[in-house]
């Protein structure tokens, strides 16, 4: 399966390599560098590159390429999914997954990689089991380790690997028992020039933070489970029960995890929470262009739209802009031609707008493309699809846990064409 892994930074240096079978020479990455040169953008490097003797499968996360070397047939998604799992694990352990973080924790990184794959086949990828094997580094532990010479490697043997619920470790104890669930929905939409919706879908997840003693068995029920017709679950969820009763029944992993993610795609269910009025024009012959943009709330169920950020890639011909925001700040990078406007909160009484002129390259003809506008926002205390949790019950343990649920809506890939 996976033969070797190389980590390549944005300047094209291999800063870490790990081999699970016999050693593969670094020079195999030359094919990758070639492809990297050919690609105009970093994300345009093809994920699968064939070379005479190997296949390179890479993912790009946090401006680091994780390049896996494969020697024979294996489903590419298998490798890609695994590489992403590696990145997630690093992020989980070190907080960030940057070159510096990896270099600082090189020992832990090697220990992790060694446990995650055996002879190229995934062995322990559950973060819960890994954390039992290798303790995540914390500042305190680093200090203690340097003084006492003790280690990150867990002294106990990882019993989780053997249990029927591999995702949960045994003997969990908390003084405060609590279970929090965050329903987070992201709305992806394309709005066309005239303001009508071309496509809109909601991608939702329920992230949980469960700190409960012992082996609790939870059930979570929804007011409107019918919304969830396209879902994927954490392995802990009992699928049969969901099929039969539309109730989520599970023994939760300890700590943070993603319980389920769902997808609402039918148009009528998706309400677009903001609208944009825009007028971006370039006139033939003049070196000036007009730029007007106004944002307003729409169908937000009374909740405020916050943390609004507008960004747009202006055409290459634009030299500079001279704009006036009614609120927030805007920046324009004349090199990358990226305009971004940090709006903040939308006040329905006084709608934020950005107006002014753009100066174009003199003599050049008017750009024929109009920029698209990307919008980010957050709406607290509301899930756009209307999903509501009904109740959470716990069985199997005697104590009363503290329960909490939070809803949030965010913009995902929200684009307005002009």
């Amino acid at each position, binding site marked *: 399966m996976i033969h070797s892994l190389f980590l390549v930074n944005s300047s094209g240096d291999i800063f870490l390599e790990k081999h699970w079978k*016999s*050693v593969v020479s670094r020079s195999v990455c030359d094919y990758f560098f070639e492809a990297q040169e050919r690609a*105009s953008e970093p*994300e345009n490097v*093809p*994920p*699968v590159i*064939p070379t005479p003797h190997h296949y390179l499968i890479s*993912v790009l*996360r946090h401006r680091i390429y994780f390049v896996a070397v494969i*020697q*024979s*047939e*294996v*489903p*590419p*998604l298998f490798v*890609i*999914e*695994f590489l*992403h799992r590696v990145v997630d694990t690093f992020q989980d352990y070190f907080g960030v997954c940057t070159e510096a973080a990896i270099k600082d924790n*090189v*020992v832990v990184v*090697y*220990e992790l990689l*060694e446990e995650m794959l*055996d*002879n190229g*086949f995934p*062995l322990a990828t559950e973060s819960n089991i890994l954390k039992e094997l290798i303790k995540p580094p914390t500042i305190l532990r680093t200090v203690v380790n*340097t003084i006492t010479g003790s*280690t*990150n*490697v867990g*002294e106990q*043997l990882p019993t989780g690997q*053997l249990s029927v619920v*591999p995702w949960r470790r045994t003997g969990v104890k908390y003084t405060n028992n609590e279970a929090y669930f965050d329903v987070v929905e992201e709305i992806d939409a*394309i709005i*066309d020039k005239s303001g009508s919706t*071309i496509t809109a879908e909601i*991608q939702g997840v329920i992230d949980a933070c469960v700190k409960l003693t012992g082996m609790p068995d939870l059930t979570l029920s929804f007011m409107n489970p019918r919304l969830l017709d396209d*879902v*994927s*679950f*954490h*392995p802990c969820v009992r*699928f049969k029960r969901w*099929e039969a009763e539309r109730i989520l029944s599970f023994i939760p992993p300890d700590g943070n995890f993603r319980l389920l993610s769902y*997808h609402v*795609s039918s148009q009528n269910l998706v309400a677009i929470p903001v609208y944009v009025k825009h007028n971006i024009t370039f006139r033939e012959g003049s070196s000036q262009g007009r730029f007007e943009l106004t944002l307003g709330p729409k169908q937000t169920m009374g909740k405020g739209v916050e943390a609004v950020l507008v960004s747009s*890639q202006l*055409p*290459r011909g634009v030299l500079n802009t001279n704009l006036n925001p009614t609120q927030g700040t805007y920046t324009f990078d004349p090199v990358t031609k990226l305009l971004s406007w940090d709006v903040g909160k939308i006040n329905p009484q006084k709608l934020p707008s950005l107006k002014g002129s753009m100066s174009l390259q003199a003599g050049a003809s008017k750009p*024929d*493309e109009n920029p*698209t506008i990307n919008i980010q926002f957050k709406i607290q205390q509301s899930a756009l699809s209307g999903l509501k949790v009904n109740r959470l019950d716990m069985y199997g343990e005697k104590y009363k846990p503290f329960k909490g649920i939070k809803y949030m809506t965010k913009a995902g*890939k929200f*684009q307005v*064409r002009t």
Partner: protein
Amino acid sequence: MLRLVWLHKTENERRVMIARGKNASDLFPAVVKNVACKNIEVKKLVYVYLVRYAEEQQDLALLSISTFQRGLKDPNQLIRASALRVLSSIRVTIIVPIMMLAIKEAASDMSPYVRKTAAHAIPKLYSLDPEQKDCLIEVIEKLLADKTTLVAGSVVMAFEEVCPERIDLIHKNYRKLCNLLIDVEEWGQVVIINMLTRYARTQFLNPNMNEGGGEKKKTEATAIVRRKPYVMDPDHRLLLRNTKPLLQSRNAAVVMAVAQLYFHLAPKAEVGVIAKALVRLMRSHSEVQYVVLQNVATMSIKRRGMFEPYLKSFYIRSTDPTQIKVLKLEVLTNLANETNISTILREFQTYIKSNDKDFVAATIQAIGRCATNIGEVRDTCLNGLVQLLSNRDELVVAESVVVIKKLLQMQPEQHSDIIKHMAKLTDNIQVPMARASILWLIGEYCEHVPKIAPDVLRKMAKTFTNEEDIVKLQIINLAAKLYLTNSKQTKLLTQYVLNLAKYDQNYDIRDRARFIRQLIVPTDKSGALSKYAKKLFLALKPAPVLESPFKDRDHFQLGSLSHLLNAKAGGYQVLPDWPEAAPDPSVRNVEVKESVRAVETVTARDRGPLGAPQNQRGQSSGEDEKKSEKKSKPRIGSSESESEEDNDSESESSESEEESEEESEEEIKKKKKTHTHTQRDKTHTFYIGVQMFATICKPAWLNMQFLLNPLPVSVPQTIVPSGNLKTYELLHRITGEGLSVEYCFSRQPFSPDPHMVAVKIQFTNSATSEAKSLHVEDAKLQSGMRIKEFPEIEVLPAGETVSVVMGIDFCDSTQAANFQLCTHTRKFFVSIQPPVGELMMPIFMTENEFKKEQGQLMGMNEITEKLTLEEKCQGEHAIVQRVTTAANLSRVPCGSDKECRFAGKTVTSGSLVLVSVVTKENGAAQLTVNCEKMVIGTMLVKDILQALTQ
């Protein structure tokens, strides 16, 4: 020096040194020493280091082997597993035999986790030494029969790497794999699903066979001719049903695996379910999107309807990477049909305005394909493309020209104005491909533009020398065509162009010029061909078909690397075509096995390829049953003769058993000498394994002599006449509600496990109704004790008697084995307590051996008692009879008639038991028992005393 450096480093520095692994191979000896280090982290890093550098420093790596061998015997399963894991990762050929044995042993370990590790080790060993394939297949076969989810994924992975062609190994495990699938860890699921896809293709019939080729939508719609009713194999259905929930997995690879399974195996009407899941994956990371879109592109050609409802999910965002945009375009184009083309074209219009020029070019190509596929929109598309010709971006224009050329070829008559328009473009467009296309168009349809064509040629002749090669070729082409149709105006121009071409640098162009000159310019020498020049040049050319690059990619298994690259990758297993007629489905039937199979002990013999050759014991006792049944039917009531018959048959079968036992014993000896590990009798090879590892873990790890160590395996003998067996009651007729059960210690060796005592159990049904499904359940045993249940008795008719044999490992103690005896209605708590004499088995010894062994078992191990023999038993014969009845011992030949000697060994631990009875005058005698186990000795003395004095 290096060692000093190493020792002086602090622990933390060492960690870093090992982890970095930079040029660290010269430190190898110093590092390997730390393999026995107490610090777990250092230990683990040493493992990492060892595995990395072992190949380069083979001799030194061997130093560490003994540590792992010790680990293999650790009582903690996790340590056993990790020792096996590291041992098998050391790529040094000389330890192959050690690895092989370790894997075999681990494959029958009690712990599923260790068995999983064994499955992981198989491909490692295989890559190190492919010659071990046959042995490894046996281990794989055994592990495939494992019933735990932990093992399933890993063993299928090993199967795929070592012997993917041995599809026959799957038959028996097919249903089990299907049922376990949902609980297997996600990576294992992917491997199993891919393997089962291939399996299903060889074993089941095509569910879509009634739909002709199933290629084009039109033929599908019209020609549904039912040849014969198709009925899906229930196993096929099982696979589809059990994989469907996995579409909900969070792991994209699992979802993709299920999707390809449905695409390749499901009836057409059911394939649709995968679309939703695949569309959901599109929200994932761009690499995942890339792979999923490639597969969707292939699927959407074959099954367009499936993705049509999700058309809008494939709309392109300006922030998508180019490679994703291009793939989405591909899917959109495949999905286009008469009803949705207008929306798709509107979408395309926005795309054309994009900043990303590669993407724009791809969009134009896509428009061209839509136009060729859907006749209704051809004109609209063409007009749109023509408008693009006035685009400022040259690339866009060039791409449009190329596409327009292809479109025009379909119906040139109506579009002479477009051709005229394009002719004008030659002044501006510089992209060679576009220029070449325009020239070709004008040449091809010169009769539609008779006035412009010569003028274009004139302009081209002027710039000929500065053109690119493909353009030059097209200029020559144009000249030739014009010469043939309009020689009056263009004769000189053609000559001029041909002359220029004659001295061109490119030999292709020179050749072409020469060839054309001969063909079209009539000279005296010109051959017969020139008559046909017009036909050659102006023949009607078929319009090009614009095809998706993803067409016919589905002959590769979807989701595979080969499919993605559209080229066969190494190790790719071809997805076979459906068979014409389904192979025999009964191969997948699994016989209901004895429940003992679930408790994986060392009984490995029973896993034959068909499951039929179960262990000999089971079989012979089965035969017993049949025989006794047959015999008892005609003469119910004559219980005496019946039991006689029964015993006869029993001893018959046991004789044959002995023979085979002896045979295999010899085999083992042979094996020991030749070091070959072909195993015909796994139980015994395992036994060697145990012995071997007992020896191997001495520091002299490489000393292969251990294989020659003598084995304390005795040749079992049955001497006790069956009539002497004492029967005990297990269940009384009244408490058992008509079912009475008796047992006796048959004193036969229990062949599935030599460490067990064979207990013969006889069921008599004296009730009026029949008893069903008699079996053992819920054994409550002291630690270390084990039970091997008898095969379930399905029916015991009223008045009948049946006997079976079960094995119990009492661990050399007289503690009772408690278990439940179940019928279909009741459960009875019963217990079997062995007399101490049944815990041993006879061995043969010579007198000298006896004396020697006795000499070694003196002191505490010797118990002597004086006794007075009973009157009746003062003869030698009587003594022998009474002693052998009390204990399962065999007589040792003895010179004196005053002394009787007996020898045996305990069943579980194999400790020697030596008994001697010396008779004196007046019935006085002295009994001596020598036994390593003092408790056994004391109890045995008591029992024999009782037997002799009463």
